[in-house]
């Protein structure tokens, strides 16, 4: 069990910067998810933590000990690879016990620990089988088994569910989280799937283009995204963005065809205006409202419906209860949930500090 601390970690491949001055701490026993679009440097960060890649600069601490220059094998970290990396020339049992079979562990203990892990993952009956014919779920379990059997200080998992189909993924998500709760080891989990991240994480670290944008619990990332990118990346359907103008201390942002009341801003605004971010569930449809629009489309989604409204300032998606009756082409008014709105600086993409009355949860 261990805490992982990253300080100013930087990795360049030639001219290309894959990871830019990342700093964060993964707490002991935490399920920490690194989330970001493809190519943002998640795998590279993970590989540096594991010791498979040398950072260009920066330091890595494991339980307070500087391991930046230690070989991968000396760090006592387990890694689950994107494509599992199971050895086809070994049986399931041999694959699971592979990390033990060099460490001078007695043969009896190897057998016992392998069986214990296999039981825990419900693959005890497969131990003698070759890994070649396994289903992807079982391969996944074998890969996890190989990580767990060593009782490493920390687990690093690189998109371990990426190879599974959607249905099975939900199941494995639950299983994985359950496993983490039982084993209790510090886990760093990489994914580009925000749903996976939201359901499993204690804290999420959102990355883009090699940079860490925000770290926090899922609810906070969702309700108070630190940048426009985070706001747009998290949440489905995505947050609505409107460009408008307003001064420091203004209580409303002027947009085309209306004004949106926002929490009081603490920062002066640049001349370039601002971007207002509002989640679909924070817009209410009414006869009259802060803005006017025309219904473009209505999609039923079970208990909710998703209503797309065209306004002068752009197209907005609204999440409404399915009891609401609106017709395509109908003129409607829109009201905004002021406390939950976000205001972003269009240049830097940063969220502006404002008066928020507690965190509103979606």
């Amino acid at each position, binding site marked *: 069990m261990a805490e992982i601390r990253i300080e100013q970690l930087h990795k360049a491949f030639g001219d290309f910067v894959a990871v830019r001055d990342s700093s964060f701490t993964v707490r002991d026993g935490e399920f920490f998810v690194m989330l970001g679009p493809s190519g943002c440097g998640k795998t590279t960060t993970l590989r540096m933590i594991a*010791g498979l890649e040398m950072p260009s600069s920066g330091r890595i601490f494991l339980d307070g000990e500087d391991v930046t220059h230690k070989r991968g*094998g000396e760090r006592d*970290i387990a890694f689950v690879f994107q494509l599992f990396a199971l050895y086809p020339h070994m049986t399931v049992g041999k694959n699971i016990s592979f990390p033990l079979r060099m460490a001078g562990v007695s043969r009896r203990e190897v057998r016992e620990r392998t069986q214990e892990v296999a039981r825990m993952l419900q693959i005890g009956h497969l131990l003698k089988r070759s890994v070649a014919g396994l289903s992807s779920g079982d391969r996944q379990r074998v890969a996890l088994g190989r990580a767990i059997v060593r009782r490493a200080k920390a687990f690093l998992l690189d998109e371990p569910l990426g190879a599974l189909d959607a249905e099975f993924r939900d199941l494995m998500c639950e299983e994985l989280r359950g496993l983490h709760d039982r084993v209790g080891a510090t886990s760093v989990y990489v994914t580009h799937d925000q749903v996976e991240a939201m359901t499993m994480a204690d804290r999420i670290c959102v990355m883009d283009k090699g940079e860490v944008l925000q770290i926090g619990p899922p609810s906070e990332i969702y309700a108070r995204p630190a940048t426009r990118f985070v706001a747009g990346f998290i949440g489905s359907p995505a947050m609505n963005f409107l460009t408008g103008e307003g001064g420091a201390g203004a209580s409303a942002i002027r947009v085309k065809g209306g004004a949106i009341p926002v929490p009081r801003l603490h920062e002066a605004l640049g001349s370039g205006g601002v971007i207002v971010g509002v989640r679909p569930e924070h817009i209410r449809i009414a006869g009259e409202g802060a803005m006017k629009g025309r219904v473009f489309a209505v999609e039923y989604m079970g208990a909710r419906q998703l209503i797309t409204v065209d306004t002068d300032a752009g197209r907005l998606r609204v999440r409404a209860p399915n009891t609401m009756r609106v017709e395509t082409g109908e003129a409607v008014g829109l009201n905004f949930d002021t406390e939950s709105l976000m205001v972003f600086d269009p240049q830097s993409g940063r969220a502006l500090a404002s008066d928020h009355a507690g965190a509103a949860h979606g």
Partner: protein
Amino acid sequence: MSARATTAHSVVEIKAAGKWFAGILVAAYALVAVIPLAWILMTGFKSPPDSISYPPKVVFEPSLEGYVNVFTNRSRQTPEYLESLGPPKAWYDKISRKRNMVITGPSRFAGRYMNSVVIGFGSTFLAVFLGTLAAYGFSRFKVPLKDDLLFFILSTRMMPPIAVAIPIFLMYRTLGLSDTILGMILLYTAVNVSLAVWLLKGFIDEIPREYEEAAVVDGYTRLQAFIKVILPQMRAGIAATAIFCLIFAWNEYAFALLLTSGNAQTAPPFIPIIIGEGGLDWPAVAAGTTLFLVPIVFFTVLLRNQLLRGITFGAVRK
């Protein structure tokens, strides 16, 4: 409806016809390739008169005379002298007595054959060993000028090795490597290692890096990971490469003729000499050739599953 059925039917027919055609082609080629070998195998068991009879005999009385002759030196004696020797002691004595011959001692064939074994397998082992390590390095590490080096290695095979026979001959004479087993091993290794590096690099490239990385994270050293994970995965590739190297070293004739004589001579330059040693002794030549083929056939059959997998490696994966 009927049109569709016809189309589907004819497609199947073309496939079947194609299969037949391919089958016949392969059979015809096999015949062309196998008939000379079968003839050699038969000639080895003929008596010398049968071997040169015209029309050629397909049905004949089998005899081990060729095999006896290839392993022995004999001298012709008068019947009176043979009489004075008393009855032949061993079965092979009996065979030579029939031709008024006395076995005077073993021929050099066994020694030449052993030279072939040592040089062929020694150079194959060295080429595959060095090739595996080099291929692993080229496949996994950042090597400065990697592409140029790989091209250079390949370029050593762009002319027939025999084109540099004279410089090698002179160099070997100066270094004292002429007519030594070590010299021949080094020479064949040098020729084979470029092929080995290229073939093996292809095989290693196909093995995901994650395999070793997983082992390294689990506490294995790079070398242990190589031995425990990479080597078992490239068995097929190593088998295929080894067979190719062995076939070259085993069959090589020109260098062996030029660089070896009394000491390190291999079987290929020796076998033709048998012809001159006592008339046209075709059964002896055929027997020597048959024995010469045995190891290659043996290893190819032994490794044939690996070999098939090795040759079709790229096609099978993914």
